[in-house]
């Protein structure tokens, strides 16, 4: 059974806050949910399925948020794979809707790491519960930045990727962010400014890293029948894939991501090719993340990602593949250190024709959103979704 055309995105909302000192995490989740319901023209009592990630949702597997929001559900899924959870959940929603297990599904993400002052990228985080690998990793002080930096270092060594090429990813994001009034970083930056920004973890500079922000977002997905009864543009899911990648018992290869396995089934289900995409949201925790995932999804040959992103090729209006037109994680936001949901939101805006006019892709009827959660340097889950405007 395929999920192609079985579920539609009818409501989206991105919280405008980037520093939520005056809000709790449950408030953020609920405000996002209310925003997405208003966008869809539905009410809370229409929701019969809730999809979240246990890691950013207070309570046992989302239960406390179900209680807080007063939801009456037939289906609950709190699968947590870090930042890619929400991309995964788009596929899981479609599976549940296709199986008749729910008809109006809510997905939420929220968090306030900035208000809480977390040094999320550069400080090793001790695991709350011991994991099997803990003793063999934590003593070496793996943080987020130096793990992705090791991927970048190997990619540069193996394929000749340069710091200047990686910088182009940030430059493109900054060109888009200038039009987003909510973006944390709205100033256009140059390749020189990126490579001359302070080194965080060799070879990643400060401007190769995404922002730390508060905020969140939500989506409402539903059946084709209910979608057609609403007044929103018809955006449907036509393909989804997910795949974890890990250390493979010590046969470690950091030059590729799980996208090599999550992409092909999504494209096959949708019946389209990477070259057909009018727009792509690509998880941009770091500049290298984008380069690796673009290669692994087949937008260019393996090892050619650095060349592919250069010279403004990702900038809407001038490049061949407009990406992250909201400014992405590199410039706009990265709520709860999880960028998957906002990737879907901007793809839906593009398909609806509701992106900022300066970055809106003309006749955008086919878009991809992709991300990885966990760490490309150790273990992660990749998720790919392909959506179409009817």
């Amino acid at each position, binding site marked *: 059974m395929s999920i192609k055309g079985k579920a539609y995105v009818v409501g989206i909302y991105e919280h405008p806050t980037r520093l939520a000192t005056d809000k709790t995490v449950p408030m953020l989740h609920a405000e996002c949910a209310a925003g997405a319901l208003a966008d869809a023209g539905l009410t809370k009592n229409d929701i019969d399925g809730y999809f979240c990630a246990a890691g950013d949702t207070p309570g046992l597997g989302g239960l406390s948020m179900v209680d807080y929001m007063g939801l009456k559900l037939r289906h609950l899924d709190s699968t947590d794979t870090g930042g890619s959870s929400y991309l995964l959940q788009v596929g899981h929603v479609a599976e549940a809707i296709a199986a008749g297990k729910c008809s109006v599904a809510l997905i939420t993400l929220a968090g306030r790491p900035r208000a809480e002052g977390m040094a999320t990228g550069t400080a090793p985080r001790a695991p709350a519960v011991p994991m099997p690998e803990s*003793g063999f990793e934590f003593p*070496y002080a793996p943080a987020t930045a*130096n793990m992705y930096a090791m991927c970048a270092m190997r990619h540069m060594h193996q394929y000749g990727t340069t710091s200047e090429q990686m910088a182009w990813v940030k430059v493109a994001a900054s060109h888009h962010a200038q039009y987003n009034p909510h973006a944390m970083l709205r100033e256009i930056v140059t390749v020189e400014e990126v490579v001359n920004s302070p080194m965080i973890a060799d070879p990643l500079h400060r401007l190769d890293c995404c922002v730390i922000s508060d905020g969140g977002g939500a989506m409402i997905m539903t059946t084709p029948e209910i979608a057609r009864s609403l007044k929103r543009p018809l955006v449907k899911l036509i393909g989804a894939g997910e795949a974890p990648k890990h250390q493979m018992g*010590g046969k470690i290869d950091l030059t590729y991501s799980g996208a090599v396995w999550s992409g092909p089934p999504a494209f096959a289900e949708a019946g389209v090719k990477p070259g057909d995409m009018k727009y792509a949201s690509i998880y941009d925790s770091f500049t290298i993340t984008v380069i690796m995932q673009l290669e692994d999804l087949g937008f260019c040959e393996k090892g050619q990602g650095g060349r592919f992103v250069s010279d403004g090729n990702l900038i809407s209006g001038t490049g061949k593949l407009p990406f992250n037109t909201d400014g992405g994680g590199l410039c706009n936001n990265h709520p709860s250190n999880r960028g998957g949901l906002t990737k879907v939101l901007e793809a839906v805006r593009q398909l609806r024709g509701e992106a900022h006019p300066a970055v809106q892709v003309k006749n955008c009827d086919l878009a991809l959103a992709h991300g990885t959660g966990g760490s490309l340097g150790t273990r992660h889950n990749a998720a790919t979704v392909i959506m179409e405007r009817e």
Partner: protein
Amino acid sequence: MAEAKDRKIPAPAVNVETQAFWDATVQGKLMIKKCTACGEPHFYPRNLCPFCFSDKTEWVEASGNATIYTYSVMRRAPVPYAIAYVTLAEGPTIMTNIVDCDLDAIKIGQAVRLVFRPSEGGPPVPMFAPV
């Protein structure tokens, strides 16, 4: 020149599955697991082989010779340090720190040799230094 300085190493988590590994580091040995059913060595060590799922895994001592697969110097830390993956002569690639070196002179492909560093209240932790 940025000489690698010693930082405080948190004690590794030790459990019944990995006790033998950490008992060996006290003796100055790096142990890996090898499966006698499929012949594959693996790391980090498990009781069940992650390749064939046999429980016929045994501890074998690694030579301590390795090459740097990749690395990164964390500059934004109280004491800058080099994290790395090194490929052991026996096959598996493992996470470690590169120590006793100029942090600016580390290179992929460089030959390194096993050393140990004390942890805070736990067994010594295996690390690697350029040959």
